[in-house]
C-alpha cells in the first residue's frame, strides 16, 4: 500500500541477478511476482492458443466449457476462498446470468421473450444483474456464518430454481428449456464454423479461442482483485473477522462486496457457458451445479486463481476422464443391464464419485498442491529427493 515511501518507482523491479530479492511491497504483490511465473504464464498462454490445432472438436468443447467454468470458479473462489464465506448459492447466480443473457440476446421472433441485443450488451448485463442479486444476498452473510450461511445460500438455489421453473416466458420451463444467445462479437459469428483471421476454423475451434480470451481477461481481473487492498481485506475477514473489524475493515461492506464481485463473475460465466451449450433447462441450476463449483475450488486450490482454473478444467473434464478410464477396463461389461457386477455407465458414474473422494483424501490442497510439489521438486533438481 504505502510501503514505497522511501523507494521511488525504480524499486518495483528487483535488483539485477537477484530475481527473488524483494525490496518493496509492490514487487511482492506484482501480478506475476517471479520471473519463472512470468515466463511460464507466457508459455502457457501461447500453448493454450495452439490447443485447438491438436485436439478433436468434441474434446475442444469440453475444454471450452472448462475455460468458461474457470471464470465462474474464480468468482466462487473470491467469495469462498479469499473472503471465506462458503456459498452454495453459486448456481443461482450462474442461472441468473444465463437467463439474463438468453433473454437480452435471444431471438426476438421466437416463442419466448427475447430482445436480440448484441453480445457486448448481454454479456456485461448478465454480470451486472447477477451482481445486483449478490448485493441483495450479501447482507445475509453478515448475519450468518459457516454452515448456516452455506445452507441458506443453498435455500437460495432452491428458491431460484422455483423462479426459473415458473417464469416460463423467460426460461421455457422444465423439460423444454430455451436456447442461449448467439455468440457474435465484432462481426464474427462464433456459433458457426467459418474463417477467422484467414484460417478456416470449425465452430469448436472458434469458441475455444473466444473462451480463452474471456478467461484471460477475467483471470487477470480476478488476480488484480485478489492482490489489491480489497483482496487483502477479504483475507483478513476470512482469517478472523472479529480481528478484521477491530483493525478497521467494515465487515458488512466487504462481505457484500465479495458476494457482488463473485456474482458478477458467475453471471458472465453463466451467460457464456450456456451460450456455448445451446439449449438449457431450469433444472441445470440446482444443488449439483453449486456443489460442482465448490468442488472446483476445493480440488483446484482454495484462494488461488490458477487453482480455480485447474479445478474447473478438471471437474468439467471429469465425466470424460471417468468415461475414458472406464473403457480401459475390458472386464466391465458394456451392456446396459446384467453382465458382471456393474456396467460401464455405472462404473463411469462411480469413478466420478471416487475421483472426487480420492483427490480430496490424497491431495487435500488440490491440484494446486500437486503443482507446488512438482515445482519444488524441479526447483531443487538435481538435488531433490
Amino acid at each position: 500500500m504505502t510501503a514505497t515511501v522511501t523507494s521511488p518507482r525504480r524499486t518495483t523491479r528487483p535488483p539485477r541477478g537477484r530475481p527473488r530479492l524483494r525490496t518493496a511491497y509492490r514487487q511482492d504483490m506484482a501480478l506475476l511476482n517471479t520471473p519463472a511465473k512470468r515466463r511460464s504464464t507466457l508459455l502457457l498462454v501461447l500453448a493454450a492458443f495452439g490447443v485447438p490445432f491438436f485436439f478433436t472438436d468434441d474434446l475442444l468443447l469440453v475444454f471450452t466449457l472448462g475455460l468458461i467454468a474457470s471464470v465462474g470458479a474464480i468468482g466462487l473462489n473470491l467469495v469462498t476462498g479469499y473472503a471465506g464465506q462458503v456459498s452454495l448459492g453459486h448456481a443461482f447466480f450462474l442461472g441468473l446470468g444465463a437467463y439474463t443473457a438468453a433473454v437480452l440476446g435471444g431471438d426476438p421472433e421466437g416463442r419466448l421473450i427475447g430482445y436480440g441485443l448484441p453480445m457486448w450488451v448481454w454479456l456485461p448485463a448478465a454480470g451486472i444483474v447477477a451482481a445486483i442479486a449478490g448485493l441483495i444476498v450479501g447482507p445475509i452473510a453478515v448475519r450468518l456464518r459457516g454452515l448456516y450461511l452455506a445452507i441458506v445460500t443453498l435455500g437460495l438455489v432452491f428458491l431460484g430454481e422455483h423462479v426459473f421453473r415458473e417464469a416460463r416466458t423467460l426460461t421455457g420451463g422444465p423439460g423444454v428449456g430455451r436456447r442461449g444467445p448467439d455468440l457474435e462479437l465484432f462481426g464474427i459469428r462464433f456459433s458457426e464454423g467459418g474463417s477467422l483471421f484467414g484460417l478456416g476454423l470449425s465452430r469448436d475451434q472458434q469458441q475455444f479461442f473466444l473462451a480463452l480470451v474471456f478467461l484471460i481477461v477475467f483471470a487477470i481481473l480476478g488476480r488484480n482483485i485478489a492482490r489489491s487492498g480489497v483482496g487483502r481485506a477479504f483475507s483478513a475477514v476470512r482469517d478472523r473477522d472479529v480481528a478484521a473489524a477491530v483493525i478497521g475493515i467494515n465487515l458488512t461492506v466487504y462481505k457484500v462486496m465479495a458476494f457482488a464481485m463473485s456474482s458478477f463473475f458467475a453471471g458472465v460465466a453463466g451467460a457464456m457457458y450456456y451460450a456455448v451449450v445451446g439449449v438449457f433447462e431450469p433444472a441445470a441450476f440446482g444443488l449439483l451445479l453449486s456443489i460442482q463449483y465448490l468442488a472446483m475450488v476445493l480440488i483446484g486450490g482454495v484462494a488461488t486463481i490458477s487453482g480455480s482454473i485447474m479445478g474447473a478444467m478438471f471437474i468439467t473434464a471429469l465425466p470424460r476422464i471417468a468415461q475414458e478410464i472406464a473403457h480401459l477396463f475390458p472386464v466391465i461389461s458394456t451392456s446396459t443391464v446384467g453382465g458382471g457386477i456393474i456396467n460401464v455407465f455405472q462404473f463411469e458414474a462411480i469413478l466420478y464419485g471416487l475421483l472426487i473422494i480420492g483427490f480430496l483424501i490424497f491431495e487435500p490442497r488440490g491440484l494446486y498442491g500437486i503443482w507446488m510439489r512438482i515445482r519444488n521438486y524441479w526447483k531443487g533438481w538435481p538435488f531433490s529427493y
Partner: protein
Amino acid sequence: MTTFAQAVLNGFAQGAIYALLALGYVMIYKATHVISFAQPALMVCGGLFTYHLTTQVGLPFWPGLAVAVLLGALLGMAVERLALRPMVGKPVFTLAIITIGVDIVLRIFANRYMGPDPRIVTFPNGSRRYEFLGLSISHQRVALMVVTLLTVIALVLFFRYAKAGLAMRATALNQETALAQGIRVGAIFALAWAIAGGLAAIAGTFVAAGSAGMEQNTWIIALKALPAIIIGGLDSLPGAVIGGLAVGIVESLTAVYQPSVAPFLGANFALVAPYALMFLVLLVRPYGLFGTKEVERV
C-alpha cells in the same frame, strides 16, 4: 376445518420422516461438524435393506426393520471409516464434498439393485386406516409416528444416561479436551455415523412402505431435512425433531392452500416453502430455534 386438520395431520406424519433424517444430520454434525450429504444414499440403502429382508429373505416387517437398522448402522460406520476418518482435521467443506462422492457411489449400487421398478415394502395392514372426527390416517403412518417418538426418547435417554452418550456430548463440546479425558474420539465418530445410518434406515423403510415405495428418484426426500436442521438449529436434537415436523406441516399446508390463497407464488410453491420458512426463521434467529450461539474470540 377438516381439510385443515387433515392437512396438518398428513404434514405431521410426513414431518416424522424428515425428523428422523434431520436427527441423523444433527448427530453427525454434533460429533464431527460435518454436514453429511451421504444421508440420501443411507436412507435409500436402509429402505432397500428392509425391502430385501422382507421380500427376499422372508422376515416379517418389524424384525426386518430391526435388522435393516443394524445394517444401516454398519453402513454408516463403514462410510465413516473408509472415506472420512482419513480426513480428520481437514476443512469441513472438503469433508462435505467427500460425502457427496460417497452418496453418488452408494446410490449407483442402490439404483442397480432397484432397476426400473419401485421397491415397495409391504406394511402389515398397510391400507387400513384409523378414522376419527372426520380425519383419517393409515396404520403405516401411525406406526411411523410412534417409532419416531420412541427413537427420540431413546436418543434423549442415551445422551443423558449412557456412558457413550456422555462421551459423545463431551466430544461435541471439544474434541481435544475429550481426547485428554480418555475418550476415544474416533470411536465416537463411528458411533455418530452408526446412529445416523440407523435413523436413515428407519426413515428409508417408512418411505419404502409409503404410497409408492422406493424408486431411483426417491432419495431427494432426504434433502428436505436440510432446511429442517437449520430451522431447528444445527446442533440441537429437539431442534431437529421440531424442525422436521415444522417442514412437514408447512409443506402440507402450503400444498393445500397456496394455489387458492396465493396463486402468484407459482405452481408448486410447496416445494420451496421449507426454504422460505428457513429464511424467515433465520431472519429472527441466526442460529435457528435451538442452535447454540457461537462465541467468537479475537
